[in-house]
């Protein structure tokens, strides 16, 4: 922090720093409680509700919102859309931090976090979708680390190592897309085993497809959203290329998001049709499902399209934020709202305030890490000593 203040020349006691500081202190206290007293002391988890917001938000939402990394790098390096090059590094960084936080959050959630490598080193439970998730997340975090490393190496001046890693770009990108396809979809497939617990409107054999396709939407929207925030707070760190390409990225990604949302809307409707669940739409759960489907899928699809047609960057940015919120709603619906819908209200889950503290704490850590890195490393600008890759 003091280092930060020294480098940027800004005062240390900004409102942001104060709030972040309070959250971090609270988070550390709850962390100590969690690891010394147990899950019971800080969560509302129960035998009926074994998964709370640390899975529903931190894992499911976290992984989906970190999808910008593979979406952007695939677009630029594999599909040859060079005009979005300036979006790659911020997206990779967001992805890397996102996955790091997911893994940290898992340490809070599982009962014996020091055993997290057990599925790989002790016994492999390969019939479990969770095994697939674990393997892919572990591998993909490594891939993201390597993909991110050139920025750190440029900062540290490790020219030879950087050159070596840059040569791997295409291989890493392909690997990243394969791993992302697998675990983004597997997160949805986790719930395939519980048709008796998940509301039929959300349960579908297409869950893996829904999760994968919506991760693309989340990734695209997150890149726009993150670029909006970066431009607002770190504009001084951006070079001419980033400032120039900013609107190009918003228009291009907005267009892509609109198209993918349209496809997503169609397969969601096909899902309702496949389960013949039309009659459930008039129930309370059905209305909530329609809010999700119309309000958070159809509406942003339309708004993105209008924004792109009118070149209305402001509308695209707001739509991106709305779409990100929609993704959050969808993941929480599947993991918490529509899960265990058959149970009486007294047995349903609502997060303990300390669970929320940990989630906010982790998000804050992510934001702080993002700030630390973009104010030091060549993320929002190209390092003058190195050619783009």
């Amino acid at each position, binding site marked *: 922090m003091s280092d930060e203040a020294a480098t940027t020349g800004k005062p240390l006691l900004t409102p942001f720093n104060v709030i972040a500081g309070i959250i971090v202190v609270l988070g550390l206290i709850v962390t100590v409680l969690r690891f010394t*007293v*147990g*899950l*019971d*002391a800080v*969560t509302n*988890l*129960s*035998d*009926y509700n*074994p*998964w709370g917001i640390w899975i529903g938000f931190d894992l499911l939402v976290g992984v989906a919102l970190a999808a910008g990394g593979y979406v952007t790098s*695939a677009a630029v*390096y*594999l*599909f*040859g859309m060079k005009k979005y090059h300036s979006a790659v590094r911020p997206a990779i960084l967001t992805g890397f931090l996102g996955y790091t936080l997911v893994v940290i959050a898992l340490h809070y*959630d*599982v*009962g*014996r*976090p020091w*055993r*997290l490598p*057990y*599925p790989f080193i*002790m*016994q*492999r*439970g*390969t*019939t*479990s*979708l*969770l*095994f*697939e998730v*674990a*393997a*892919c997340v572990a591998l993909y975090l490594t891939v993201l680390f390597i993909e991110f490393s050139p920025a750190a190496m440029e900062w540290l001046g490790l020219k030879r190592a950087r050159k070596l890693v840059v040569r791997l770009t*295409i291989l890493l*990108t*392909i690997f990243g*897309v*394969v791993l992302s*396809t*697998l675990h983004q*979809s*597997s997160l949805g*497939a*986790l*719930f*395939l*085993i*519980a*048709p*008796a*617990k998940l509301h039929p409107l959300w349960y579908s*054999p297409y869950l*893996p497809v829904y999760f994968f396709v919506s991760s693309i939407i989340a990734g695209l929207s997150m890149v726009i959203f993150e670029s909006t925030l970066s431009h607002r707070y770190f504009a001084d760190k951006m070079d001419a290329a980033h400032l120039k390409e900013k609107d190009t990225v918003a228009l291009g990604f907005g267009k892509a998001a609109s198209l993918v949302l349209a496809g997503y809307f169609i397969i969601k409707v096909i899902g309702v049709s496949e389960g013949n669940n039309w009659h459930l739409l008039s129930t309370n759960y059905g209305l909530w499902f329609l809010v999700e489907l119309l309000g958070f899928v159809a509406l942003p699809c339309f708004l993105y399209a209008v924004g792109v047609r009118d070149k209305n960057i402001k509308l695209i940015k707001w739509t991106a934020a709305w779409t990100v919120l929609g993704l959050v709603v969808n993941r929480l619906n599947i993991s918490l709202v529509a899960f265990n819908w058959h149970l009486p209200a007294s047995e349903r889950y609502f997060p303990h305030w300390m669970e929320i503290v940990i989630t906010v704490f982790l998000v804050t850590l992510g934001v702080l890490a993002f700030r630390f890195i973009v104010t030091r490393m060549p993320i929002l600008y190209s390092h003058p000593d190195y050619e783009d890759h």
Partner: protein
Amino acid sequence: MSITRRKFLSWLGAATAGTTLGNTANAASNKHFSGYPNSMGVLFDNTRCIGCRKCEEGCNTVNELPAPERPFDDLSVLNTRRRTDAKTYTIVNRYDAVSNVKIKGPLYRKVQCNHCLEPACASACFVRAFSKTKKGAVIYDASVCVGCRYCMIACPFEIPTYEYDSAFEPRVMKCTMCSPRIEKGLLPGCVEVCPTEALTYGKRTNLLQVARARISKFPDRYVNHIYGENEMGGTSWLYLSAVPYKEVGMREDLGVTPAPKLTAGALSGVPIVVGIWPVLLTGIYAMSKRKEKIANTETKLAVAAAVEQANTEAKANLKSEIEAVNKMKQKEIDNAVKKALEEAAKPKEEEDSDAQPEKAEKKPSEEGS
């Protein structure tokens, strides 16, 4: 100690780990696993249960579980709906309103692990902490458990519980069908103490026959449905009831699909993605690279052509300009010559009369130089 289905599904996940073993892929075949031969089970007949909670006590004793808050002979706990928890492997609930007129008084339901033939928990566990023994019990190995609690999500009967209050050694807790006891030839704790033979322990195949016999002997007393025969692909625990099962809190909407089948499709997508994506993406990369190359070459060619055209045009322009200049010069010369000649002609004409020709011949040569 593991199940066939899990074995034959394992190749799918093995692809994720990057190791392809030579297992035969039977997931899509018509092979059906109907339990280990001679595996054991328990039949619970709710028309015989009196709600004495002796089974709860027996379970507590043989499994050395912590003592309950209220003693086992306190039947007032039956007034509330309970579930199994980390300190209780089995509980009995009372259901007062029953639709069968043949039954006087309430009905009871005993809750414990149903020991599925193809357990959801075992299929869901990513560290294989659960296994189905040949005797029929689904047992749990706390020494490898990470504590992800996916088994609790997966179990359709909501049986596994968790020691949330333990910071360092939390375990999943559930009925073991008294596996250590049945391996020794003893009865499960609950069955042994049941005073009314509401619980019958035996080979599952025999229990099914017993159950059918009871139904056919007393068709008014029982609904014609042995719960657990097919539910979720079949369970080692079987139930007979005087009323439809949902009246005693048992779900009738679980279906007959074994849990591993529910995820087999998604798992079979793994090798497809791993196989197709890299090829496809490399192809897309190659295409975009090639497009770029062609675009570059085309740009280069176009530039070269444009340069050449400009050059030739410039040359042609230069030539025509030079020609024009030359022409103009020639014209000027011609004009000058003409003029000189004309001027020369004039004095000549005059000379003709004056007779001075040398002067006129000298002038054009001066102009030409």
